[in-house]
Structure formats: structure tokens, C-alpha cells
């Protein structure tokens, strides 16, 4: 308790609260603008923290991380272009809601459930950091492979009408991620002796191309006299508490899921949000309205991806392992202030740890305040004529694609992938599975190969672990159910008009 009060006295200093607020603002801006991501924001914020007090410095970084995570939903909902990979699943129902004129409801819901998920996971983390980190250790390569394979099975739920088309898209995503220098064997693959291809296809670059370029091409080829699908009146309605209360059980389940996945190193926000989306769809009473603007399709991924923030803090603090590039930068910020994560952290730096917990809560208060005020302004983006918006988006995306790795090659890569995505959209092939394949592909492959090396080439390693078997069974179940329902649909197409 004494330690807590000591931490509180540091964390509630105006300078610390201000630093967290600044971080949240930076994160929100970078997260909400398509093309700019919070990983870039964190990299820029890191040097400012060198000369700050430890708690304020960590607060700034955590604020940026959390602000970025919640900001990603803004452009996902308003423009159908996710600001971060973690928000890619939010597009599926968030953007249709905007088309129905419910943008502000979707945005408001996203913010509130984000805060719910974030605080929930923080509490789980504080209470059970020891237990969860011990569980996380038991996830070896074979177990992570099984978990990620289970994640892949959610492709089934993202296919729209046709499993075949969904698989084409998903496999293409997997194939794209094999380009580049293979880390395990140190061998270049599919690079055709090009140094630029040696760096591989960046996930964020591909994501910008996949979602933003089709939007831009569509606007450019539209006849100017055709009225765009825009709502005449834009009001900043917020979701009613009653509506949210009815979904609280879904929010709890998605928070647990997000926290759990966040705690396992090598996974992250994108996997969690897709699994949560699939979970919500599968157990929803109004399953057919998913993809057409069902609010549950916003609640599930947004709760889960913010619950990941608390989850990733578990291996970060207790084991010193960053779960993704963003937390790797937070880790650097901790280390430079002499706070070395690991088993000894909670004894040596208890004050700073408590200070971090408080900073996370403060960050979410800032998120709530800034976003709820911001929604009033965000929705006005929809009033901007689409042709002007498209130009702005194109410029931002080019800057964003370049800034991730400071590589002009990435701007071209974004263009090529974007044109491909436009063709896919025209052929009614879903593009979300590409993202899923790209997010999961490298983990899937690396963990499989590492597991095989561990076992000396014997595949039995996957069948002797109960955790792995559990996830294999779940994956089989998901695929089996989908095949059955697809066969049913083929036999009686009139039963469901639009699957």
C-alpha cells in the first residue's frame, strides 16, 4: 500500500498526467490517420523520453501505444481503411454502419468498449501476472503453432459467399509473407536477387494498399454526377448505455480472449481481433446481419484488441519479452531508464511498476475524454467530398508506406498490392483473408519449423501436447461446421438469401 501511494504521488504529478495525455494524443492522431501507425509514433516518441523522469517517460510511451490502439478504429469505421492491423476486423461491420448513417454510434461504441477491454485486461494483469506468465511459458513453438492455426480457421467466417474465394485470398496472403530473407535458415526466398525484395513485403504497407487503394480507384472512376453513398445529415449520436449493457457479456468474453492472446509472445492484436470477431459472429443470434453493420462486429474486435494491451504487458514485464514491434519500443524505453523487465522487476522497481499501472488507467481516461469530444469532429470527415478525400488519403498513404521503413520501394509495393486488391474487389473475392494470411503466416511457418527442429524432425511433437491438441480440435470444429453449413446452403439456396 505504501508503495502504491508512493507510485501514485509520482504518477499523479501534473507533468506525468500531461505526458500520458500527450502520448495518447500522438497515438490517436497516428492511429487514426490511414497510413501512419502507432509503431511509427512510438519510434518518434522514444527519443523525447530519454531526458524525462522514468514514470512520465513510460507514461508517454504507454499513452502512445494505447492511444494508437484505439485510434485505429476511427478510419476503419469512417473510411473502411484500418489505421492499424488490429483494426482490420473492425472494418467488416464498422464501415457498413457508417454507410447506414450510424458512424458516430460505431465510433462511440468502439471507444467505450476499448476502454472496457483495456481496463479489464489491466486488472487481470495486476491480479495474475505471475500465474499468467507461468502459463505463457508453457506455450512453446508447437502450442503457438496450434493456436495460430486455429486463428487461420477463422478465414471461414470472413469468406462472404464462397469458401474457395476466401481460401484463394488467404493463401495469397500466406504466399506474400514468404518473400524476403528467411530468418530461420538465413536464405533469401522469392527475391530474384533484388535487395529491395530481401526486406520482404511489409504487413502495414500491404494493409494500406489493400484497403486504401481500392477506395481511391473507386472514387476516381466514379461518374461525378452520381450521388455518392453519403448520409445527408451527420449527427454525433453516442450509443445508449442500455445497448452497451446488453452486450456486456460479449465484452467480457472478448476481453478474456484478448488478454489471453496478448499474454502469449508472438501473437498480438490482429489475431485477437479476428478471433473475437469470429467468436461474436458464431454465437450471435443475428448471424446473417454480420458484415452488414452489426454493432457486435464492432464491439468484439475493439474490446479484444485493447484487452491485448494489458495482456502484452504480462510477458513484457515479467519475462522481458515484447509481443510485437510496438511493445519492443516500450521495452527500449523501460531499459534506458534502468527498469529491466524480468522476474526481479517487481521487487526492484515496485514503485515504477505501480506507476505504470496508474499511467495505463490515466491513459484510458484520456482516451475516453479525447475520443468522445473528437467524435463530433471526426464525423465531419464524411462531409468532405469523396474526390477530395481520396486525394488526401492517397497522399497520406504514400507518406505512411514510405515512413514505415524509409523505403521508396514500399510506395510501389503499396500501389501494386492496391491494384490487385481492386481487381479482387471487382471479382468479389474478399480481401480481409489476405490480411489474416499475412498476419499469421510468418508465425505459423516459423513456429512450425522451430517445433520440428526441437523434435528432431518428428511430427509427434504436435500430438503429444494437450494444449496443441485442444487448438487443433477447435480448428477442426470451426472448419467442419463451416463446410456443413456451406453444403446445406448449396442444397437449399433459398433458405438463406445472402450467406
Amino acid at each position, binding site marked *: 500500500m505504501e508503495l502504491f501511494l508512493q507510485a501514485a504521488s509520482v504518477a499523479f504529478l501534473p507533468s506525468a498526467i500531461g505526458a500520458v495525455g500527450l502520448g495518447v494524443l500522438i497515438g490517436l492522431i497516428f492511429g487514426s490517420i490511414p497510413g*501512419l501507425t502507432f509503431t*511509427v509514433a512510438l*519510434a*518518434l516518441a*522514444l*527519443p*523525447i523520453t*530519454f531526458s524525462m523522469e522514468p514514470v512520465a517517460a513510460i507514461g508517454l510511451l504507454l499513452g502512445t501505444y494505447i492511444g494508437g490502439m484505439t485510434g485505429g478504429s476511427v478510419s476503419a469505421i469512417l473510411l473502411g481503411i484500418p489505421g492499424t492491423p488490429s483494426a482490420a476486423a473492425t472494418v467488416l461491420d464498422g464501415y457498413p454502419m457508417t454507410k447506414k448513417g450510424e458512424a458516430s454510434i460505431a465510433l462511440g461504441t468502439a471507444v467505450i468498449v476499448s476502454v472496457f477491454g483495456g481496463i479489464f485486461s489491466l486488472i487481470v494483469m495486476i491480479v495474475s501476472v505471475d500465474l499468467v506468465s507461468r502459463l505463457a*511459458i*508453457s506455450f*512453446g*513453438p508447437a502450442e503457438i503453432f496450434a493456436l495460430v492455426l486455429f486463428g487461420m480457421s477463422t478465414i471461414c467466417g470472413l469468406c462472404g459467399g464462397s469458401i474457395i474465394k476466401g481460401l484463394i485470398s488467404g493463401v495469397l496472403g500466406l504466399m506474400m509473407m514468404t518473400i*524476403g*530473407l528467411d*530468418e*530461420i*535458415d*538465413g*536464405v*533469401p526466398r522469392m527475391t530474384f536477387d533484388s*535487395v*529491395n525484395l*530481401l*526486406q*520482404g513485403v511489409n504487413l502495414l504497407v500491404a494493409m494500406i494498399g489493400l484497403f486504401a487503394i481500392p477506395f481511391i480507384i473507386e472514387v476516381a472512376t466514379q461518374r461525378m454526377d452520381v450521388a455518392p453513398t453519403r448520409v445527408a445529415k451527420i449527427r454525433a449520436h453516442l450509443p445508449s448505455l442500455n445497448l452497451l449493457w446488453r452486450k456486456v457479456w460479449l465484452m467480457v468474453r472478448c476481453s478474456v480472449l484478448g488478454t489471453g492472446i496478448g499474454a502469449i*509472445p*508472438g501473437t498480438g492484436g490482429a489475431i485477437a481481433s479476428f478471433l473475437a470477431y469470429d467468436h461474436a459472429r458464431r454465437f450471435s443470434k443475428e448471424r446473417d446481419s454480420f458484415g452488414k453493420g452489426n454493432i457486435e462486429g464492432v464491439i468484439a474486435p475493439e474490446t479484444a484488441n485493447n484487452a491485448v494491451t494489458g495482456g502484452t504487458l504480462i*510477458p513484457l514485464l515479467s*519475462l*522481458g*519479452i*515484447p509481443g510485437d*514491434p510496438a511493445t*519492443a519500443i516500450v521495452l*527500449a524505453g523501460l*531499459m*534506458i*531508464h*534502468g527498469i*529491466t*523487465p*524480468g*522476474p*526481479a*522487476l517487481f521487487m526492484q522497481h515496485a514503485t515504477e511498476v505501480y506507476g505504470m499501472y496508474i499511467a495505463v488507467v490515466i491513459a484510458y481516461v484520456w482516451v475516453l475524454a479525447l475520443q468522445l469530444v473528437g467524435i463530433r469532429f471526426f464525423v465531419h470527415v464524411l462531409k468532405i467530398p469523396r474526390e477530395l478525400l481520396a486525394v488526401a488519403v492517397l497522399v497520406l498513404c504514400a*507518406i505512411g508506406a*514510405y*515512413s514505415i*521503413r*524509409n*523505403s521508396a520501394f514500399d510506395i510501389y509495393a503499396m500501389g501494386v498490392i492496391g491494384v490487385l486488391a481492386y481487381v479482387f474487389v471487382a471479382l468479389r473475392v474478399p480481401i480481409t483473408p489476405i490480411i489474416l494470411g499475412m498476419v499469421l503466416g510468418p508465425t505459423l511457418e*516459423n513456429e512450425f*519449423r*522451430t517445433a520440428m*527442429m*526441437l523434435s*528432431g524432425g518428428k511430427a509427434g511433437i504436435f500430438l503429444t501436447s494437450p494444449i496443441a491438441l485442444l487448438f487443433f480440435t477447435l480448428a477442426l470444429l470451426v472448419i467442419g461446421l463451416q463446410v456443413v453449413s456451406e453444403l446445406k446452403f448449396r442444397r437449399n439456396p433459398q433458405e438463406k438469401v445472402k450467406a
Partner: protein
Amino acid sequence: MKFTYRIRGAVTAIAAVALVALGGAAKAEFPEKPVEMTVLFGGTANTIAQLLSELMSDALGQPVVPVSRTGGGGAVGYSHVVGTAPDGYNIVWNSNSINTARHTGHVPFDYSAFAPIARVSIEIPALAVNASTGWTSLADMAEAAKSSDKILRVGISGKGSFTHLTSAALFDAMGIGDKVAYISYGKGKAPVELLAGRIDAAIQWPGQFKSYVEAGDLTVLAVTGDERVAILPDVPTAMEQDVDVNISMWRGLAAPAGTPEDVVAKLAAAAEEAVDSEEFQKAAGNIGFSPAYQGSEEFGKLIAKDDKFYGDLLKKLGMAM
């Protein structure tokens, strides 16, 4: 003010390109515009680079802007810098990766395409095992490995990575080179895998093991440099244990070959001032690297010596092109 500069400098490097295009006309004293420092890796490399560039900016009077160009084991960044003008405004935060990138065939040029500026830091790898093995020295480990049919599983970052090369050299010198199998993990996961008992040993940076050693979960048997490391002062070097291995990773600065000597000297002086600063020394202790400034000429000799060493090692491992 500093922050707004950074956003401009690092995010929209388009502006920087424009600056380069406009600024080349008049010849004045170096530096008259920002210096771009290409960073090849994330993690510790990036953190040190950000701190170094901040401190060098103070010394030079012009901003040094760290720009991350990762990928291909450094090949992407090296290729970018090789293609820039040798005027000192484009430098690279380099490491032993220049030797390995060349010998594995990822870049078509070698270290001589760069003018060495200065060595800045070194990091010394450490070999850790699970405390439950009871091993306390390299001899214990070698004996256990030799007397058993079991193959030891050793965690590395990836084939051809620095941790792999160090492991290979160390286990060869210990005479158990044929008793180990290498398991490639991504970066940073080795301590957990050791803890969980999925691997028997791993070579990583001392900073990653420190907390576990204090908690009594892992034992560090040796460090592979010629001196002990400050954060694990009780751990002897391999040479103290009669195993003839001396490998450490250096990081430093280089510019494209042909950069004028006075420009190189100015950059080296700025780097020296940064390394000597209290802030840099303190960060070194926290992050777990050793500040090790070395001037241009000596640094060049070190790179040339290492080039032969890593070339031979990679050839032995069948990875050289």
C-alpha cells in the same frame, strides 16, 4: 521545437531529399545541413542509435537524424548508404553484419565500400543454461555433453545470425561441435525457452539473462569476449576457462568510401564526445552494452580482421557464398 523537427526529419524524409538537392550548391564548412544516420536493425541497435544521434547532434551543431532501414540482415540499409554521395551527410550505424552480409552473398560489395568513422560500442554474448542442470562452468557442460549420447539443443536467433556464429565457434573450441543441434527462434525468446526447458543452452546478450540469474533460474557459464562484462561481473570469460574464443559484437559508424578525411574526422570527434558523455555511459549500464570508442584507422583494421574471421567461420558452416 526539437520534437517538431523530428517529425519533419524522420517521417517525411521527402523533405530531407529536397534539402539534399538544394543544399549541395555552396561549399562551406561541414556540416551545414542535417546528417542522416541509417539504422539497420531494431531493438538495442536502434535504441543506441537514437541516443547516439541525439548526443552527436549536440556535438556537431547540426541534427543527426536516425533513419531506420531494416531488413535482409542489414543488406537493405548498407545498399542504400553505398549508393549515396560520399560527403558525410549519409552515414550508417554498422556492425559485424557488414562482414556476414558480404560472405552470405546478400550484398555484392564488402567492407571496403565504406570509410570507417569510429567504433562506438561493443556487446559481448553470454552462454546461459537452466540452473537445474547443475553446470557451473564450460568444463561441466563439455563433460556432460561428451559422456552422453544426447544431442544438446541450443537456441539461436537464426541460421547465420551473430548468436549462431558465436555458438558455433564456442562449441567447436570446447570440442562438442558435433554434439549440438541449433534451434532457430525469433529474437529475444531464448530466456523463456531455457526456463521452460525446451532448449538446453542459448547464447544471447547478458542483459537478457541478468534478471533470471538474480532470480536463480538460469546460470550463465561464460561470456565470449576477452573481458568480463560489467552487469555480470562474476561470470568468467571463455578464455579464463581455457577455451580459446574471443568474439564480441562491435557497433560503429561508417560512410561511403571516398568521404573526405576531414569530414570523417569531424564525425569521429562528435562520436567520441557522445560516447564520453555521462548520459551515454549511464545508458550503457542500463541497456547492457560497453561504450568502446575507437578511432577511424584502428576501427578499419578491426573490420578487416573480422572479415577474414567471419568469412572462414561461414565457410566452415557451409553458409559462405
